[in-house]
């Protein structure tokens, strides 16, 4: 019988590596999606996931049984991703202005028909995410994709409630600018096989 998350943590805490493997098998993929959206690169996302599990292993004793293992791992992953982004050389990350310039719709840019593929939307969205500050990006991803509450986000990112809300507001504003091209025609993007698939 497959161990549930809390039981796996308890056994891993006692040194059972197979139990820890259960957590890696179960949560790697979700953490990868999160890490990819945070870093924008597949290889960086893999490094973040790896570091997340190493930190989680070191911190097994701090996990409280009444908590949710997924939320605990998300929190570690967000912190790892933020650390990763901060350690990344400045030149690799686009400035906010550059990113906004790239994501703003232009008269000569692609039409809605050209941009209907999910992969293209994904790429566009990743550029938009790259234009957010680390905290805006983390707050937005936690709220939009992972359904974390404002309190959980604030606690993870070390922000007060109002600051957390404002990070989300700023992020949504910027993401809306980026998504204008897809919203204008109200067209649903078609599914396209490849790197991006429906969640």
């Amino acid at each position, binding site marked *: 019988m497959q161990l549930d998350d809390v039981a796996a943590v308890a056994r*891993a*805490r006692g*040194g059972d*590596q197979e139990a*820890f*493997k259960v957590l*890696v*098998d179960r949560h*790697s*993929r979700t953490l*990868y*999606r999160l890490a*990819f*959206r945070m870093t924008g690169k*597949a290889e960086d*996302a*893999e490094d973040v*996931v*790896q570091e997340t*599990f*190493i930190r989680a*292993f*070191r*911190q*097994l*004793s*701090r996990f409280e049984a009444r908590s949710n293992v997924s939320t605990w791992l998300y929190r570690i992953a967000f912190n790892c991703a933020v*650390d990763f982004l*901060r350690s990344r050389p400045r030149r690799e990350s686009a400035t906010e202005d550059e990113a906004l310039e790239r994501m703003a719709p232009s008269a000569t840019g692609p039409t809605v028909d050209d941009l209907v593929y*999910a992969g293209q*939307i*994904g790429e*566009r*969205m990743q550029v938009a995410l790259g234009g957010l500050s680390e905290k805006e990006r983390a707050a937005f991803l936690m*709220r*939009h994709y992972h359904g974390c509450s*404002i309190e959980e986000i604030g606690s993870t990112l070390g922000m007060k409630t109002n600051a957390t*809300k404002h990070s*989300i*507001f700023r992020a*949504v*504003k910027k*993401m*809306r600018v980026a*998504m*204008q091209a*897809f*919203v204008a025609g*109200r067209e*649903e*993007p078609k*599914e396209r096989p490849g*790197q*991006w*698939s*429906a*969640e």
Partner: protein
Amino acid sequence: MTSGNTEHPTEDDLVLLFYGDTSPADEGRLAAHVDACDQCRPLWQDIQASLAAIDAAGSPEPPADFERVMWARVQREIEGMRPATNWWAPSVWMPVVTLAAVVLAVVATMRMPDDGAPPPAGDTTIASTQPERALLIAMDDHLERSELLLVEVMNAPTDTDAVRLGFEREAADDLLMSSRLYRQTAAHTGNVEFASMLEDLERVLVEIARGPSELNQNDLNTLRAHIEEEDLLFKMRVVTDEVRRRQQAIATVSEGDL
């Protein structure tokens, strides 16, 4: 909601509405307003459509064998690593208290000789048993880990605006409770020099463990100055040498008994 009943909601209000972060009362009022208001409805629809478009992007997917590859990477890193200890669990701190008490009882009876000469082989208090040797080894390990931590802090890079102390904070936190127990026991058993060194060490460990995870160069210099002012690394090395000398003395006596 920042606007009154009859006023138009702000864009931020509508974002809260979208994510279900408004109070039930505000939710009903806002929903009714955007339904009825020709001015607000387009903005509300635009917010909904934009965020729906983000969902339509799908998710980035790793390769098919990602879990297997990730486990291989993680397993390589955690091999030989032990999960950090939760010092607040009684199952953990009770043995530590016992350990500390016995170690310090042994150390207190040693009272480092002024001339540095090994104690007489017939001193039964010191050369008594192997368990005492094991305890000295534990003390040695504690001092060695503490020294490594301080050396890392002293050698942190100085060419960056800020230095992250993530692992150093965790290590300091792990060392803090055992250090405190050793220090209290040393004080109770009258080993003043040892207690004094551990008190200096404890102050620095608290500063690292409870300080910010990211230090600017000024903060880092202040921390280093505290370590240097106390001559802490030197004192720790002196005590470590003494603990090792005692281990050796016990080992020599044990071999002689065979």
